[in-house]
């Protein structure tokens, strides 16, 4: 089906994009790895790595805090997005009337630019004039400083990101639900299976491949998410909502530590490689199951 003997033409077609990608992707990436191995005089050294990993177990290691916060951020986000997305998809799949309207409304957080969504939430949580505190005040409850406490702020930024991420999960699951043959359910009903049994024995097992893909993609997107944290909490208070991605930015562009920031970059790169390998495995497994 493919042309074989004309490799040089292929290279001519490829050349412009390879040059561009080389210039804006691979060259910078190589540069970044090199910066991470430079000391302050530009000599090769492991200084930055020693600085990060050497103090990993000391009580004031920002690096360790950031790693744990990144893991908490990613895991909690993914769990909530997955669960809520699945429930909404199952609910949508049960009705006909009004489904198109619900679906459109539920897609809004995904369609709106993420920075607009983040600013909208920031405004809801404004200390004095935001909706949340004004509503609390109205019903005579004490107002709450949403962005002053590390744990609460983390929950707030996670909530904002869940709000953004749920529609993707929902649509993916909905696609998966539609691909399940109706005859399976008919057969199960004939055998007298309860709705719960149908869910656990037919729906969920058949959704597994698509759930794995959605999880892998959701994990990468959540890990990479910058706008929500940068806009809503700026990583604060006291770095308590910094993730690897936002803290790298702060080190580079607010503290001017290019070396340390690049080392953080290499740590991010290793996470991304791990995710990609996982994603590839999922993708191959799905192909073997013949779902796609």
């Amino acid at each position, binding site marked *: 089906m493919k042309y074989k003997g004309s490799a040089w033409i292929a290279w001519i077609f*490829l050349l412009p994009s390879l040059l561009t990608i080389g210039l804006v992707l691979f*060259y910078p990436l190589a540069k*970044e790895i090199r910066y991470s191995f430079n000391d302050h005089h530009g000599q090769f050294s492991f200084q930055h790595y020693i600085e990060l990993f050497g103090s990993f177990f000391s009580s004031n290691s920002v690096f360790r805090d950031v790693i744990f916060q990144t893991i908490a951020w990613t895991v909690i986000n993914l769990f909530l997005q997955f669960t809520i997305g699945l429930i909404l998809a199952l609910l949508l799949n049960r009705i006909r009337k009004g489904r198109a309207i619900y679906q459109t409304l539920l897609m809004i957080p995904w369609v709106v630019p993420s920075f607009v969504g983040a600013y*909208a939430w920031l405004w809801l949580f404004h200390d004095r004039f935001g909706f949340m505190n004004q509503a609390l005040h109205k019903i005579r409850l004490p107002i709450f400083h949403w962005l002053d406490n590390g744990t609460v702020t983390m929950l707030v930024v996670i909530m904002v990101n869940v709000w953004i991420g749920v529609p993707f999960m929902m649509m993916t699951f909905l696609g998966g639900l539609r691909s399940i043959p109706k005859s399976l359910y008919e057969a199960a009903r004939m055998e007298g299976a309860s709705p719960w049994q149908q869910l656990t024995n037919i729906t969920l097992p058949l959704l597994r491949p698509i759930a794995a893909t959605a999880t892998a993609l959701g994990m990468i997107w959540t890990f990479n998410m910058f706008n929500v944290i940068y806009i809503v909490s700026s990583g604060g208070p006291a770095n308590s909502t910094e993730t690897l991605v936002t803290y790298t930015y702060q080190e580079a562009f607010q503290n001017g530590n290019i070396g340390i920031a690049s080392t953080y970059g290499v740590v991010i790169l290793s996470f991304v490689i791990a995710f990609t390998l996982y994603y590839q495995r999922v993708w191959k497994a799905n192909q073997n199951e013949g779902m796609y």
Partner: protein
Amino acid sequence: MRKSNKWVHILLGTASFISIFPILWLLLTSFKPVSEIYSDTFRILPKAFTLENYVDVLTRSGGVFWTWLLNSIMISLLTTVIGLILSTTAAYAISRFRFRGRKGITMSFLFTQMFPGILLIIPLYLMIDQLGLLNTYLGVVLAYLAITVPFCVMVLKNFFDTIPIEIEEAARMDGCSQLGIFWRMVLPHSLPGLAIAAFYSFLTTWNEFIIAVTFLKSDDMYTLPVGLQQFVNQFNTQYHLMAAAAIIITVPTLLLFFFAQRLMSNRYFYKKG
């Protein structure tokens, strides 16, 4: 059956409400006069509906908002056009030819899609600074190509894979050159794929925040997202202007998205290879 459906509607209704509420609140804020927005009296609907925030956003500082709009349009269009030229040719080569290194190149396009922008932004910033391209269209467009090209290549490759090669062989018999085949036979047959790639490039660029905030330094070069950030940052808390500007930025995004969705629900888009 009836009863359970009632609960389905209650749950879906609640979820729908939560998903639109922040944006709805922004919309309501944008129509409130400043005196109502920054007041301790809680009110949901604007008491005195006004367009003054929109007028303020569009006319302040000699109408700089229009400059931001123009910058956003120019940067998004440039990225989309250059990105499509680069990715259609690359995707065609990967889809149609067998050559050494094909697999490696395909894998690297796949892999680089996973990169968070932050990974590239530091060295790109230094490089673009050295080239003297900070605060220019070209500098930002170069950075955006790093994001859009890998994705577009994969989308278009999958699309080209579905076009029967017989079309091309027939054209070759008639003496058409390789570039002619690509231009006259392959591209016209891939319009839906090109549309997806173009929508993706345009929307990604239009909505891009952090590279624009970092690379664009003077307010005559800002794109809309950077301009929006000027209204609410550590020095400034003009939520009334932010709300109006955010709504103006979001409307084209919503329109483009729902237009694209209708296009994609066309069965042509679901044709399997």
